[in-house]
């Protein structure tokens, strides 16, 4: 009896090992029955991406659902080559292939075609990127330059969040969760039809995140709460025309602990709790039209409003309007051409904070862009893609971002690719107009100086020349591999150049200013690799290991005096390793875990750390799911990043439970 039990537990029953249909079975089925089989499709997008000449990773809805993550930054930890580091409960530093900072400026982030990268600041406010995770169809993470199609911020990568068509979110959805860090979260959503041609969904969401702890153990006052209402509607206007209209209203309040100078009461400086409030809204329309010859056209119109107040920083309002047209046409057998035109208008109103202002306080600017890309089939298995973006921006005028990719698919199971590209980071208002008092420096004569960072009116674009190669393989039905390697050469990277101190009377009291101006006087050579595998062990258990290596070396020009720039190589981890496991314990019970290692950040004195997240999800019938998630289970607390002005807090071990009800 005992032997029997042991045998059962070590040899899983055969049918479970291969629960998928064997193709042959289907030949015995009549046409009528074939028409009644519910099919599961591998997304065509994923199939297409498998043959792309770029390093792309797709986070699918299933990955999102089974990750147990509650926000987009934590989801992005899943993608190889992405460096996500927590600073406090509402702020992350996120970059791809190096140069991480809470103001990281080399990765473009797009939600349903709407750029959420703030042009005038050259960064992304991750605490404003709230999308109900149930509504995300997938997230594409493109590592490496994407300037040819995406334009002047897509230097090290593009993060593209795509939400579901409202036809796929019909009916009601209610979720509620509570836990030790995120104490309350709830989503109420309903999707319905409008006549025979339209569908919609509308949702309201609320969340509240507790204060975390600063390194000394004290309460960090970085709690975060927000509410978000939004809708999406999709219309089949005709068999050839689709229209999408969607919009969001988001409000959030949160805390941070900042160390700041008070420029109006010098030499006063101190550390204080500084509340932030965010109010953003947007509306977007997208029209796709298929022309009779099979080509298609898409028109995108976006208005985006963004208001953020933080006394320790600035009170900023940004209005952005964008118009994008793209057209895709096949020319004969060999050529697939995509081209597009874009116009973006941005107006900013920025009021000074305690220690910082951006000049001029009110300004507006236009960005004109055009791109063309041609995919040429050189032979049955070889495709060459050539293209460039051409942009005109308000700071440096014309910029171009060409790329060339060669893709060889010797068989359906293997893809080899290589690419070369140039990308730029367009300068932002902050690069030309910043005035920030960073610190009070006591002088030997008893008086004081103020270290001040100043923008450079003649700012230049950072630029990248990048060479990559990669290999993707579906070795068999169960095992796939993805490998990419890159060599990246950066020029004109931003530096902070000290200049001769000068005396000033205004603002009083009279004091010495120790200025540093932004310059573009550094270069970098980075190389690295990202490896990912996906192993479907037996249809019920999937394991996915990943490794990312990044080697950076930064050198300043002889004329540069920025002695800190070379240390920036220590702001991004050299090694990241993770392994994820998805296990179907029973047909209605999932157990999913992620173990992750991130190496030390020498420049920021952050030691290496290991995270373990795990989730148990239990489906009760078709409509209800319960889940329990544990995050950061390895250690009670750890730190992931630091910043000179904003106090880092600790990521704590946490647990939460969630109920999802669909009706």
């Amino acid at each position, binding site marked *: 009896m005992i032997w029997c039990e042991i045998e059962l537990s070590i040899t899983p029953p055969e049918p479970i090992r291969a629960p998928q249909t064997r193709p042959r079975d289907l030949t015995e089925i009549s046409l009528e029955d074939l*028409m009644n089989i519910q099919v599961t499709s591998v997304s065509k997008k994923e199939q297409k991406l498998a043959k792309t000449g770029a390093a792309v990773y797709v986070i699918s809805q299933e990955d999102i659902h089974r990750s147990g993550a509650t926000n987009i930054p934590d989801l992005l930890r899943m993608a190889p080559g992405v460096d996500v580091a927590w600073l406090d409960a509402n702020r992350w530093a996120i970059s791809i292939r190096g140069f991480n900072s809470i103001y990281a400026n080399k990765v473009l982030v797009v939600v349903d075609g709407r750029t959420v990268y703030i042009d005038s600041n050259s960064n992304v406010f991750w605490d404003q990127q709230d999308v109900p995770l149930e509504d995300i169809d997938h997230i594409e993470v493109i590592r490496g330059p994407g300037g040819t199609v995406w334009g002047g911020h897509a230097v090290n990568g593009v993060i593209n969040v795509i939400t579901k068509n409202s036809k796929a979110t019909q009916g009601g959805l209610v979720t509620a969760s509570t836990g030790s860090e995120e104490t309350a979260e709830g989503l109420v959503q309903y999707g319905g039809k409008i006549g025979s041609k339209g569908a919609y969904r509308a949702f309201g969401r609320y969340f509240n995140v507790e204060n975390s702890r600063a390194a000394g153990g004290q309460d960090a006052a970085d709690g975060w709460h927000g509410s978000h209402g939004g809708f999406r509607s999709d219309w089949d206007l005709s068999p050839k025309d689709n229209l999408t209209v969607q919009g969001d209203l988001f409000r959030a309040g949160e805390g941070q602990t900042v160390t700041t100078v008070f420029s109006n009461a010098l030499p006063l400086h101190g550390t204080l709790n500084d509340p932030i409030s965010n109010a953003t809204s947007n509306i977007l329309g997208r029209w796709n039209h298929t022309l009779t010859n099979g080509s298609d056209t898409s028109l995108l119109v976006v208005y985006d409003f963004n208001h953020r107040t933080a006394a320790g920083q600035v009170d900023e309002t940004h209005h952005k309007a964008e118009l994008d047209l793209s057209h895709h046409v096949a020319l004969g057998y060999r050529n697939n051409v995509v081209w597009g035109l874009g116009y973006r208008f941005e107006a900013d109103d920025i009021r000074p904070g305690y220690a910082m202002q951006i000049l001029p306080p009110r300004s507006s600017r236009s960005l004109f862009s055009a791109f063309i890309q041609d995919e040429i089939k050189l032979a*049955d298995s070889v495709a060459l893609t050539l293209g460039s973006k051409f942009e005109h921006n308000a700071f440096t005028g014309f910029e171009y971002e060409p790329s060339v990719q060669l893709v060889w698919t010797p068989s359906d199971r293997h893809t080899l690719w290589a690419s070369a590209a140039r990308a730029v980071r367009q300068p932002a208002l902050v690069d030309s107009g910043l005035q920030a008092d960073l610190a009070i420096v006591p002088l030997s004569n008893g008086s004081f100086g103020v270290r001040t960072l100043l923008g450079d009116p003649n700012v230049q674009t950072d630029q990248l020349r990048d060479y990559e190669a990669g290999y993707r393989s579906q070795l068999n039905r169960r095992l796939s591999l993805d490998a990419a390697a890159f060599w990246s050469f950066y020029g004109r990277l931003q530096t902070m150049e000290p200049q001769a101190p000068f005396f000033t009377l205004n603002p009083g009291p009279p004091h010495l200013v120790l200025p540093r101006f932004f310059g573009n006087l550094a270069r970098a050579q980075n190389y690295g690799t990202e490896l990912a595998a996906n192993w479907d062990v037996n249809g019920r258990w999937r394991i996915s290991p990943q490794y990312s290596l990044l080697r950076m070396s930064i050198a300043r020009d002889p004329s540069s005096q920025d002695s800190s720039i070379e240390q920036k190589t220590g702001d991004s981890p050299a090694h990241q390793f993770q392994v994820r496991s998805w296990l179907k314990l029973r047909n209605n019970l999932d157990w999913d875990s992620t173990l992750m290692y991130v190496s030390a950040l020498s420049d920021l004195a952050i030691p290496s750390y290991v995270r373990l997240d795990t989730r148990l999800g239990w489906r009760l019938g078709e409509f209800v799911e319960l889940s329990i998630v544990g995050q950061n289970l390895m250690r009670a607390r750890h730190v992931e990043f630091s910043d000179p002005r904003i106090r880092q807090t600790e990521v704590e071990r946490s647990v939460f439970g969630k109920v999802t009800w669909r009706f």
Partner: protein
Amino acid sequence: MRLAFVALSAVVVHANADEYQVKAAFLYNFAKFVEWPPDVFESSDSPIGVCVVGQNLFGHALAEIVSGRIVNRRSFLVRQISDIKQASHCQILFVSSSERMRYGAILRELRTGVLTVGETEGFIEEGGVVNLKLDGGKVQIQVNINAADQAGVRISSKLLSLAQIIRKPAQAK
């Protein structure tokens, strides 16, 4: 214990299957319900050519489904082609949605005697004969009668009774 698992998984199998395995089974079934002009075959027992143009999402499913099968004394031969000029031995041509930009070009270059099968709405509009349409997660059949006439393939009433019939006058060649 094992028997119970077998029974359980058999139910699962029928409820859910990979989209392209099901589409492959449709292609196999079409061979039973379509009559080609005799001159498209070299001899009375030469195989039925099942060709895929464009991105092949079947993997090995198509070859596995038809291997060893005989319909009207003919076996099957599966081929991936990249150019319509290679389609001379194809009796069933599956046109992947990756080719949706060039449906017109593909269909215009094709000689008669080919049952063309697509997987998007635009395929029928451009003159394709059969479309495998995904509707609510199920594969449905659309047949363009006029295109079938022009292609010279006869589709049995059994298949037509299950299909959504579309009459779109074929474009002039």
